């Protein structure tokens, strides 16, 4: 009699798993212990191994399907052996999962739109989605499907960028026009992170990453700009930071995101909220498309927005819709602090003061102008490494400020 292959609990907390890939095809001989499939659990990608020897008679679920623990995924038996009546009723997928867009690729060095890996082989898409994609010029292989088994459906094409993700060299703001964001359903691992961390430290499970940035060259740049352009060409450290954060976010879209409970909205546009103190509190006017604006534009816009903020003349569209925020208390000589996340954003950067500190350069202790920044991260969206990669880029940019010009 054929032996059922069921989804096994491959982690202590696993309730369901996504069958990522079959390692054996129907008809393959298998022995006990052979890897049958890879399964994405709430923690990691694990191996589902054979508990019986024989032939893989049937794959009851397709790759990409999410299956509750103990539900059927296939049969092992003798070649030609009939499978019992249950064969006709494989486990229903419990939830539409995005097989073609498992997890955003947060550390991808170069990416613009939704961090969707390019699907290999045949793309499953509804006929309507295919037609819409053809009409709109969308590459279906680059669209994250949210239908059953990753099928690309109407709503996915509607929110997909035209042409898919074209590689973009260097630190350049994205140029394509396309949808402002891509909503990506939660993967198993993101679901588990969200569920467990919320239990741990509250509704927004925040962690903090601090780095110290050498601002000598940035200070030099400010002086040079002032020397060349006079007061008209003055730029502030804050402008440099906003521009650098904008470009960094354009690279690391995994940090330019909103938590939306059942999905994460990865923004293709960068809108930076800038916390401004006002007499009875604070407000965050938004510099839109910060990655696309020059230092001068950012400077001019910041001034206008800050002025309006203090006069309470901001219009709603001027203080809403930010995708990431910056809080700068450097002017108050605060060395280091942590800022509170402004939901649904996933991150906020706290900027400390710039002060000369002893630093080791080329083996000698010398005074250097340094600035400590701390990023508060919503762990449901941003993992430690993801945030660190972002900060690394930010540091690189601010320490080589010519890239900001």
């Amino acid at each position, binding site marked *: 009699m054929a032996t059922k292959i069921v989804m096994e609990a491959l982690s202590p907390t696993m309730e369901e798993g996504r069958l990522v890939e079959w390692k054996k095809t129907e008809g393959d001989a298998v022995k006990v212990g052979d890897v049958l499939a890879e399964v994405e659990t709430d923690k990691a990608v694990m191996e589902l191994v054979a508990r019986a020897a024989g032939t893989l008679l049937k794959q009851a679920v397709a790759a990409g399907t999410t299956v509750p623990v103990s539900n059927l995924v296939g049969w092992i038996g003798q070649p030609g052996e009939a499978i019992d009546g249950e064969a006709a009723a494989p486990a229903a997928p419990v939830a*539409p999962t995005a097989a073609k867009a498992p997890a955003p690729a947060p550390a991808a060095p170069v990416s613009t739109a939704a961090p969707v890996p390019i699907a290999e082989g045949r793309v499953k898409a509804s006929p309507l989605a295919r037609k819409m994609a053809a009409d709109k010029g969308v590459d279906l292989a680059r669209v994250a499907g949210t239908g059953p088994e990753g099928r690309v459906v109407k709503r996915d094409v509607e929110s997909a960028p035209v042409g898919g993700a074209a590689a973009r060299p260097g630190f350049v703001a994205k140029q394509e026009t396309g949808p402002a964001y891509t909503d990506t359903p939660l993967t198993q691992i993101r679901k588990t992170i969200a569920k467990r961390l919320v239990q741990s430290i509250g509704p927004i499970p925040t962690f903090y990453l601090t780095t110290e940035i050498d601002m000598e060259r940035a200070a030099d740049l400010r002086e040079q700009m002032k020397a060349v352009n006079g007061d008209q060409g003055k730029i502030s450290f804050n402008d440099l930071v906003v521009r650098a954060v904008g470009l960094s976010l354009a690279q690391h879209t995994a940090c330019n995101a909103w938590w939306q409970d059942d999905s994460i909205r990865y923004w293709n546009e960068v809108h930076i909220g800038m916390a401004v103190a006002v007499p009875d509190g604070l407000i965050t006017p938004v510099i839109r498309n910060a990655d696309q604006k020059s230092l001068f534009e950012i400077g001019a816009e910041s001034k206008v927005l800050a002025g309006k903020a203090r006069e309470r003349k901001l219009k709603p569209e001027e203080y809403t819709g930010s995708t990431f925020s910056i809080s700068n208390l450097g002017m108050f000589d605060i060395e280091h602090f942590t800022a509170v996340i402004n939901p649904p954003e996933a991150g906020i950067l706290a900027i400390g003061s710039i002060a000369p500190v002893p630093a080791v350069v080329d083996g000698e202790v010398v005074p250097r102008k340094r600035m400590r920044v701390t990023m508060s991260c919503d762990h449901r969206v941003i993992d430690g490494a993801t945030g660190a990669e972002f900060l690394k880029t930010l540091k690189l940019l601010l320490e080589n400020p010519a890239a900001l010009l």
Partner: protein
Amino acid sequence: MATLTYRDALNQALREEMLRDDRVFLMGEEVAQYDGAYKVSRGLLKEFGPRRVVDTPIAELGFTGIGVGAAMVGLRPIIEMMTWNFALLAIDQIVNSAAKMRYMSGGQIGMPIVFRGPGGAALQLAAQHSQAFESWYAHIPGLKVVAPATPADAKGLLKASIRDDNPVVFIEGEMLYNLKGEVPEDDHVVPIGVADIKRAGKDVTIICHSKTVGPALKAAEALAAEGIDAEVIDLRSIRPLDTETILNSVGKTNRCVVAEEGWAFAGVGAQVVDTIQREAFDSLDAPILRVTGADVPMPYNKHLERAAKVDASKIQDAAKKVLYL
């Protein structure tokens, strides 16, 4: 407009058409003296006499064939099946004689006849009395198949069927006979082959007919509460099928659920789905789902029976599935 039951709307149609045309007569078991097993023919014997309202022995094959023979020479018989379950005994006459007569005679012999009566399940009548046969007859070229869901459609379509020069299989619903609705009082004729949009919507198309129209509308209301705007199309005629209305709707909503009382295999929905996948392939955002009676003979036990039947929540679930919700 008067409010009538489905039963009385049918009675009105019979009466009006018998007054209009002396060639029209009603024949069947218990139609005359007993006033109809379901009282659809109430009062007709009294008004029209035994020449035109004819009680028969229990002999479906025989009296159906007699109706077909009378139609061959120009009368316009209405043959009442006490229920469509009994018409299996007469199906040779409906299929081999009535449906094919015009064709095999090279167009010489017409067949203006209506076969009518209640179809589908009522309550706890068990396996042999609870069957929906629309798809059986819709399979046959030469027949028209009509299954109204409302009193107004019942009247209008019966009148159209009686006036039609083709054999029409007219399937009523025992569970619909007491359904009340507004019925136009004038010469209300609903053309055969035209579906009716019972509720307009933009998110998902629910295609149904006869007894599934009620549950479909109920499902649409429940969906509306969830912010889903469903369009409910009552086919009214199974053959000819109003493909235009179906395709227009699916072109708009991109998703479709087909509900029917009968069994799924080779059912009415199978034909609807076939039409959509051929003619509207590029409009589909999801596979079309069907909600049908369970693939079993009807059980007697009322809980099992309920589980076997189509209801609003099954339709609602299917609609959400095609919306990927």
